[in-house]
C-alpha cells in the first residue's frame, strides 16, 4: 500500500511540474518526430560535381552522361581544366571532380587501360560514397560493353577472355536502401529513453533537495523504507515510459515507415529490463543533482559520446576492449543494440541473449545501488534529526 501511496505522490509531483513533464512526456513524443523529419530523405541524392573532359569524344561524353543519369550525383558544370574545376570545390558549388584523360578514347580503342580520376571534398563521407560508387558502376558497365564490342571482331584468344568470368550481386540486408534514418533513428529512440529519464528524474531530485535542505527523500512517515521509496518511484516512471516505449513502437515506426521486424512481445521482453535499468541508473546518478537545473548541465552533452561509444556507428569490432567495457556502464549501449537487432534485423530474444542478460544485470546492479543510496540518505537524515 505504501508503495502505491509513494507512487501516487510521485505522479502528482511529476504532473504538477512543467519542467519534468517536458522531459518525460513531451520530449519523448516530439524528438523522434523531429529527427525522423530531419532524415526523412534517408539518402543523399544529386551531389553536385564538375567534370573535366580532356577527351571530348563520343565515348567520354557517354561516360559522363551515364554518371549524370545516376540519382546519386549531378554534373553541374564542365570545367576548362583542373585549376578551374578546383574553384568550384573552393566555392562549395560542387563537392567532387570527375576527370577524363585526353587519351581516354584512344586508350580504349587500342586496348590500353585508361584511368578516370575522381577528386572528392572530404567534408562529408556521403559525398565521397556517392561519387565513388557512381563512377565505379558506370566504369564497370562500360567495361562489359567494350568487351562485348570487341567480341564482335574477335579472335579466339579474345573470345576466351571477353565474357566476364565471374559476376557478383550484392544486397544490403535489413536496410535495403542503406538509408540514414533507418540506421540512426533506432539509436536515437533508445537514447531518448535514457537521457530523458536522467533529465526528468534528475530534475525531480533537484526539486526534492531544494525543498528538503539537500536531502534526496521527502519528509514524512511514508518515506522510511528504502525499498518502498525505490519501488514507488520506479513504478511511477515505469508506467510513464512503458507508454512512451509503446508510442515509439506503434506510432513512430509506422509514420516514418522504419523497419519493424519485431513483435511487440519480443520488444517488451527486453524493453522491460531496459526501462528498469534506465530508471535505476537515473535514480543513482541523480545523486549528483542538487539544483533542478543542474541536470540539464550535467546530462545533455553526454548524448553524443553515448551514441558514439555504443558502437552503432563506429563498428563495435573496432572499439578497444577497455572502451567497450566502459560503454557497458550505460544502459543505452546495450539497449540500442537490442533494439536494432530485434526490430531492424529480426533477431529473436535468444539471438540477443547477451544484450538481454546484460540489461537484466544492469537493472539488478543499478537497483541495488539505488537502494543503497536511499538507505544512506535515510540514515543521514536520522542522524541529523
Amino acid at each position, binding site marked *: 500500500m505504501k508503495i502505491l501511496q509513494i507512487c501516487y505522490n510521485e505522479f502528482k509531483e511529476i504532473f504538477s*511540474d512543467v519542467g519534468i513533464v517536458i522531459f518525460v512526456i513531451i520530449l519523448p513524443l516530439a524528438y523522434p518526430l523531429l529527427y525522423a523529419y*530531419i*532524415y526523412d*530523405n534517408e539518402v543523399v*541524392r544529386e551531389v553536385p560535381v564538375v567534370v573535366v573532359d580532356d577527351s571530348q569524344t563520343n565515348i567520354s561524353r557517354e561516360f559522363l552522361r551515364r554518371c549524370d543519369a545516376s540519382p546519386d550525383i549531378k554534373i553541374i558544370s564542365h570545367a576548362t581544366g583542373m585549376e578551374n574545376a578546383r574553384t568550384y570545390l*573552393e566555392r*562549395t558549388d560542387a563537392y567532387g571532380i570527375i576527370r577524363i584523360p585526353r587519351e581516354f578514347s584512344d*586508350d*580504349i580503342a587500342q*586496348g*590500353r*587501360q*585508361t584511368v578516370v580520376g*575522381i577528386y*572528392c571534398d572530404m*567534408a*562529408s*563521407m*556521403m*559525398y*565521397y560514397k556517392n561519387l*565513388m*560508387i557512381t563512377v565505379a558502376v558506370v*566504369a564497370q558497365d*562500360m*567495361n562489359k560493353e567494350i*568487351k562485348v564490342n570487341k567480341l564482335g571482331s574477335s579472335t579466339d584468344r*579474345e573470345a*576466351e*577472355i571477353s565474357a*566476364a*568470368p*565471374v*559476376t*557478383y550481386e*550484392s*544486397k*544490403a*540486408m*535489413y*536496410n*535495403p536502401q542503406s538509408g540514414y534514418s533507418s*540506421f540512426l533513428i533506432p539509436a536515437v529512440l533508445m537514447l531518448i529513453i535514457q537521457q530523458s529519464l536522467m533529465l526528468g528524474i534528475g530534475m525531480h531530485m533537484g526539486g526534492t533537495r531544494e525543498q528538503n535542505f539537500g536531502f534526496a527523500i521527502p519528509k514524512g512517515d511514508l518515506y522510511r523504507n528504502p525499498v518502498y521509496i525505490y519501488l514507488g518511484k520506479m513504478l511511477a516512471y515505469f508506467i510513464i515510459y512503458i507508454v512512451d516505449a509503446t508510442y515509439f513502437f506503434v506510432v513512430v515506426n509506422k509514420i516514418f515507415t522504419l523497419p519493424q521486424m519485431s513483435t511487440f512481445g519480443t520488444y517488451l521482453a527486453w524493453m522491460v529490463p531496459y526501462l528498469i535499468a534506465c530508471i535505476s541508473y537515473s535514480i543513482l546518478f541523480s545523486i549528483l543533482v542538487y539544483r533542478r*537545473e543542474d541536470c*540539464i*548541465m*550535467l546530462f*545533455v*552533452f553526454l*548524448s553524443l*559520446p553515448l551514441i558514439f*561509444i555504443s558502437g552503432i556507428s*563506429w*563498428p563495435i*569490432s*573496432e572499439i*578497444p576492449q577497455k572502451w567497450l567495457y566502459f560503454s557497458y556502464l550505460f544502459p543505452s549501449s546495450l539497449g540500442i543494440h537490442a533494439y536494432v*537487432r530485434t526490430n531492424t*534485423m529480426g*533477431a529473436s530474444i535468444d539471438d540477443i541473449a547477451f544484450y538481454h542478460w546484460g540489461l537484466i544485470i544492469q537493472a539488478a546492479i543499478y537497483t541495488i545501488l539505488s537502494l543503497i543510496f536511499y538507505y544512506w540518505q535515510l540514515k543521514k537524515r536520522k542522524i541529523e534529526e
Partner: protein
Amino acid sequence: MDIKSIFSRLKKLALREVEISRRRPLYLFCMLIAPVFFSFMFVDVMEEGAPNEIPAAVVDDDDSQVSRTLLRTLDAMQETNLTVKYKNFSDAKDALRKGEVFAIVHVPHGLSEKALTQRTPTIYFYTNDAYFLAGSFLFKNMKVLGELSGLAITKATLSAKGLDEDRIMGLIQPITVESHPLNNPSLNYSIYLTNIFIPAILLLIVFIATCYSIGLEWKRGTQKKWFKESGENVVIALTGKLLPQTAVYMLMFAFMDVYLYKINGFPIACSLLRLLGIQLLVTLASQAFSAAIFGILAGQMRLAMSVASLLGVLSISLCGFTFPVMAMPKIMEAISWLLPLRHYYLIYVNQVLDGYSIIYVWKSFAVLVAILGLPLLFIKVYEKAFNEVNYQA
C-alpha cells in the same frame, strides 16, 4: 560612463564570476574534465582511423582452387576480417542476424566449373546496413572483390598464354577509376569525426552553461546585485560575467588543438593561431546566442536551458557533417544558418581541412559576427527581467 569605469566594472564582475564558479564542482566537471576526457576517448577509440576488423562470414559451397583464391584476396584486404567460415548459408545468415558478422560472402556450388566453361557464375554478397558504417565499408570491399575476382581468373589464363600485364589489363578492364579523397587520402574516420565531435560537445556545453550561469543569478536572487555592480548596464553585466567563461572555453579549445594537431598529427591547412581565432569567434557567438535565448525568455532559467539544449543538440545534426544539410528538408536547411556550429563546420572545412581562401566562407563569418550582436536586441527585456522577474521553478 568613461572607459576607465567600464573596465573597473568589468574586472569586478569577472572576479565575482570566478569566485562563483570556483565553488561549483559542476562547472569544473562540465567545462574542464568532460571535454578533456571525451577528447581522449574519441581519439583513442578511433586510433586505427579506418575500421579493419569488421568480421564477415564466408560460405564456400564451391570449395575449389578458384574459390579459395578468391577468398584469400578478400581476406587480404585491410578492412575485412574473414575469419568466420560457415558450412552452409543458413548458418551464416543466422550469424548475420545475431550480429556475429556484418557481411556474408557466398560462393555458390559450381563456381569454378562454370567459370572454366565460360558460363559466368555469380558470387553473392550480403552486408548488414542496419549498421551504417560497417555496412558501407564492407560493401565497398565486396565491390572491389567482385571486380578483382573476375580479373584474377582471367589474368591467370591470359598470362599463361603469354600476354603481358598492360595488354591484359587493357583487355579485361579498359576503364579504371582512381579516387583522390582530397586532404584525407586514407579516409581516416578519426580525422573526419573527431574534428567536429569535440567542438560540437564544447559548443553544446557553451550553449547550456551560458543560460545556466545567467539563470543562477535569478535562482539565487542575486540578479539585482549583479545588475547594480554593472552600473545597470546589460552589456557590461553580461560581458563581465561571460568573459571569464570564454577564457575557460578557449583554454579547452587550445588543449584540443594541441592534442589533435600537434600531438596526434591531424592535418591542418591553416595556422593554429588562425584556428584559435576562429574558435574564439564561434565561442563568443555561441555565448551571445545563448544569452539571447535567455533574453527572449526573460528570466525563465529552466525554459531557457531547455531551449538552449534543444538547439545545441540539434546543431550536431544540422551542422551537416554526417548527413549533408542539402539532403534535409528546406526548413532545416534554413534553421542551420542560425546555428554557430554549422558555421564552425563550414569554416573548418574551408580553412583547416582544405586550406582554401577564407573569402569563400565570408558569409559564415558575417553570420557569426551578426550573432554577437543578437543580445543587444533584448536589452530592454533583460532590464525588465533584472528589475521585475523572480526565479520560477
